[in-house]
């Protein structure tokens, strides 16, 4: 045979509906977001304030039941700015970060917004490890992580 061979292909696509439950514990966090309040959970053994809140401490392996209200500001722990379009993923550019809210010991993942990302170097002046950021809230809040639109450098 000569030249490039063609093989029959099938275009596969999975469309499988799932109904995922956040569980009673995390639902309290999402319900409070509707009121523009961010709740972490504190481990009674190691005292870490966990964000996202968790119903058990992975280190101490004990249940966590205490809620701690946190401010909607903190610092960027780390970040990336994505400039590539990947199939099925958001249109670039977008900035992803983990944010350690003041009083928390661990970081929450969210978007960084309010910054022009078209030029990397100028974006890096505002989006830095350790830069202070504050939540920008959605007007319409439904109890999801997008009740916070993004975090903005302050």
């Amino acid at each position, binding site marked *: 045979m000569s030249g490039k*061979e063609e*093989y029959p*292909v099938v275009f*596969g696509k*999975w469309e499988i509906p*799932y109904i*995922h439950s*956040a569980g009673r514990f*995390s639902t309290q966090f*999402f319900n409070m977001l509707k009121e523009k309040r961010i709740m972490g959970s504190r481990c009674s053994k190691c005292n870490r304030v*966990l*964000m*996202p809140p*968790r119903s058990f401490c*992975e280190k101490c392996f004990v249940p966590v039941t205490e809620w701690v209200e946190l401010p909607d500001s903190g610092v960027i*722990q*780390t*970040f*990336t*700015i*994505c*400039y*590539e379009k*990947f*199939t*099925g*993923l*958001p249109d670039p550019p*977008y900035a*992803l*970060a*983990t*944010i*350690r809210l003041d009083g928390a010991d*661990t*970081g*929450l*993942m*969210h*978007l960084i917004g309010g910054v022009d990302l078209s030029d*990397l170097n100028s974006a*890096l002046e505002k989006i830095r*490890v350790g830069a202070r950021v504050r939540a920008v809230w959605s007007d319409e809040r439904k109890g*999801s*992580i*997008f009740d916070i639109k993004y975090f903005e450098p302050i």
Partner: protein
Amino acid sequence: MGRIAIVGVGQTSYEDVEAKRDKAYYEMVFESTRRALDDAGLERGEIDSVVEAAYDLLDGRTISNMYLCTASAGYLKDESRVAEDGTFALAYAYMRIASGHFDTSIVTAHGNREGPAELISNYVFDPFFYRPFGVSYITTLAMQATSYTTKYGVKEESAARVVVKNRENGVNNPYAHLKSKVELEDVLKSRMVSYPLRELEIPPNSSGACSIVLAEENLAKRFTDTPIWIDGVSWSVDTYHIGSKDLSEITPAKIAAKRAYRMAKIDNPAKQFALAEIGDVTAYHEFMLYEALGLCGEGEGEKLVNDGFTSMSGELPVNPSGGALCANPYPATGLASVAEAVLQLRGDAEKRQVPDAETALVHGISIAAGAAAQTNCVIVLRR
């Protein structure tokens, strides 16, 4: 318990998915497994355990090992699968033999890029706190690289030098997906994919398969004059909450290395290993792994590349195969590293042979199935 050895290896070439359309994924696995059995001089009947590494969403079939079982020589045998890097399948097969229930085992792994690995990796993440942001394995690895470079002030040129080194090595590896040299400038000018990662600092998406045959000590000595002994193996898994761990180091690799080294009586890894094949999931991760695997102190990773310590002519060549930056058939990436180390220790690595290699370090890592280098496996091999 006696020692356990690798007595056969088989690989297909690793290529772009388009180039691999002549074979369905399980046919690639048949090809590598047949080669591994031929390499060991064995037939299917002499194998009693079969373990595959396969990832359902990458294969686009749930329980994708239903097809792989027979292609892995597992017809009517005790077959099992892990949804992780191939090094974990090797560790599992090792334990099955160590248990005394099995004498021989096949391990197979394959990369299948019929679907988009970046989108598939988004489905690894929880649907409440992570997935909605479109996070993928590339963006989490990028966030880890940011954390590392911010802490230690790593130069972009140093990261680019990792790519130049590994791509140069890949030229001599007939199995590699990318077999062309690149210059420092090429890397530094390649497009920014996800800051700080540039196009050439991220592994390609490769398809292909790798198979390994293991045997217990007495059989291994009967099967081959060049058994390659598995003298240390360990692994560790971190939390997937990426804001809850120190992203500037790869803690689970550190822990796995400590345990594997203890088992293999390695106390000075930078001196005792003749070569290392490690999961360079990004150029920056190669530095982080040097540190986690005890080859240098914290923050000193870039020095090993800049000084040529880890180049082919250096004291400890790292990724003579070219590493993941030249072929990334995840979840076969780590098993391909094992295959390379075996060829090196046997003296069969041709143009890329490290002279007189007696002891090799292999490290496997979750790539498309983990959050920021979450899962790590370390293996010590001796001839």
